[in-house]
């Protein structure tokens, strides 16, 4: 059986006045039905662009090359109208900020039933019942009353639940969650993640969870792809990655998560420096100038994506714990 989603050499670049900005470089990713993949990286590493490029939701200034195989069929060359047929019913997306992802002047009910009536051709009464059922599913109290409310009357967590309900309303097989918990406070984050995992198992969806928080992906994904400056720098099953991480960048990311055990007043470790200029294409490892282990070789030669066995791939000359 072919995988649900397979990206082959996906490249995305934006035309800017300073030259081509390469946001995503040669990404290869595979995802099966019901599986969940975490895409981790700091701001500007290309996580969001990767998920939007896969769906085909990029602005017109972007160019995309490579193959996107959805159920074995390449959808990257399909005309827009045919791709649109997939949106909602095949692939759906949850956005980062539930404050801006709902239309402020329309009621929750109309926004929730919109895709039901437009995409699935339900009549108003059926759509309303389905909407109430969906809201019960994402644990929204008083779903009937919620239909009449406007987004400004809801809290952030409730809005994100509405967004999730909208995204799964047409039972997609593939769900992109673009930093679904970033705009929420910590107590709600866990609930929303729990809900997403639950829905994924229930509908047997494939899910790509984009986040900058390794802690978020740890318990909710099967595989993790760590991105840095548009490259996938480490790609491994979740357990494998946490037990045996190879890439200094992943290690640095994990170190910069605040911990309860550390005594008060301890400085939080940070990754010094900034991402390299994405419009320049310099040789060498893109992480070299921030890496504590970097040598001259790292600065002059670009490391290839190495297969470390056990489905563990990394892009480093001197992986932690040695090579294979």
């Amino acid at each position, binding site marked *: 059986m072919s995988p649900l989603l397979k990206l082959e050499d996906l490249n995305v670049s934006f035309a800017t006045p300073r030259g081509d900005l390469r946001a995503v470089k040669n990404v290869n990713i595979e995802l099966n039905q019901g599986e969940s993949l975490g895409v981790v990286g700091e701001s500007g590493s290309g996580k969001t662009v990767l998920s939007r490029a896969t*769906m085909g*939701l990029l602005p*017109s200034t972007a160019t995309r090359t490579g193959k996107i195989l959805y159920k074995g069929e390449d959808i990257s060359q399909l005309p827009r109208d045919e791709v*649109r*047929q*997939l*949106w*909602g*019913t095949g*692939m*759906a*997306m949850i*956005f*980062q*900020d539930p*404050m*801006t*992802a*709902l*239309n*402020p*002047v*329309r009621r929750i009910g*109309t926004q929730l039933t*919109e*895709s039901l009536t*437009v*995409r699935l051709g339900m009549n108003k009464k059926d759509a309303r019942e389905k909407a109430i059922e969906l809201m019960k599913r994402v644990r929204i109290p008083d779903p009937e009353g919620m239909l009449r409310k*406007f*987004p*400004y*009357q809801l809290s952030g967590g409730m809005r994100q639940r509405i*967004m999730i309900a*909208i*995204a799964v*309303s*047409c039972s997609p097989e593939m769900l992109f969650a673009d930093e679904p918990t970033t705009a929420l406070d910590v107590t709600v984050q866990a609930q929303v993640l729990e809900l997403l995992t639950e829905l994924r198992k229930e509908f047997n969806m494939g899910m790509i969870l984009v986040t900058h928080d390794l802690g978020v992906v740890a318990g909710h994904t099967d595989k993790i792809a760590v991105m840095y400056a548009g490259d996938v720098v480490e790609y491994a099953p979740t357990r494998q990655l946490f037990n045996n991480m190879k890439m200094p960048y992943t290690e640095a990311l994990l170190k910069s998560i605040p911990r309860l055990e550390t005594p008060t007043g301890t400085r939080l470790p940070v990754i010094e420096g900034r991402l390299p200029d994405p419009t320049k294409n310099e040789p060498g490892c893109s992480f070299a100038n921030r890496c504590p282990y970097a040598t001259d070789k790292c600065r002059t030669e670009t490391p290839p994506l190495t297969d470390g066995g056990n489905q563990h791939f990394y892009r480093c000359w001197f992986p932690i714990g040695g090579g294979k």
Partner: protein
Amino acid sequence: MSDTAVAPTTESPAVAIKKVRKKRPIGFYIAASWIGLVLFLGLFGWILPTPKWDASFFDSLGVGPFSKGHILGTTQDGYDEFAGLVNGARISIFVSFIAVTVGGGIGSFIGITSAYFRGTYDKIVVTFFNILLSIPNLVLSLALLSVLAYSDENHPSSTNRRVVVLIISLIVVIIPILGRIGRGATLQWSSREFVLASKSMGTKDFMIIRKHVLPNVAPALLAIGFLAIGSVIIVEGSLAILGIGVPGGASWGSMLANGRGNLEFSPWEVYCPALCIAFTVISCNWFGDYVRTALDQREAKI
């Protein structure tokens, strides 16, 4: 306003509504009642027991206001001033309403679609708007009227034809004004995430424009639409003074134009239509302003 009434839970809805009403400025009531009066006169003025507006009363030429039978007096030619104003209200409403709805409709459709789809279409539209805006309104209307509705003693053109051409020239003036507003607001709203979210659910472009962009762009369009009604009335008046408005002293502008030679004998001939124009324009501006702030509230709350 019922939505704002839902928010406070401790008060009953009626109290909340009252509170919102209190905030309305006095200018709103003055503007609304003047617009209401003009609308009433324009639509139902014919049921008032006024003298005929297009008949000359030879027995009372140029009588002052508050004289018997002529509440606002008559012109030097014996036309009843009040009847003229009532008829002028009808013409003004008709001309400005048609010009603003048709011109605004066309303009905002072009503006919204160009901002939504971008690309070459957008560039063409922006150039087109800029060209239209670079021609002075009056010159444009003058040119259109004198070409399409040329009239002299040998070739009289009918009143209807002149009114139609007048409306068309006003529509041409309105299109870029509302078009640019619609384009600007759409640029802002169509880049918001909820448009992308709706798109990602497979909604078609025109559906997104209708359901997500238009409701957000509408307040700006409505407010500018009211302002446009005001400026259309002024343009119509200016054209009348240049002698190419609605002929025969039928509109406020042409009453003004006909009366301005008699300013020293019967000043009310100028003051009455001039005040009507001024009040209507100011009321439209106030009303437009109020509509904008009232419709903005929901967004401000977020």
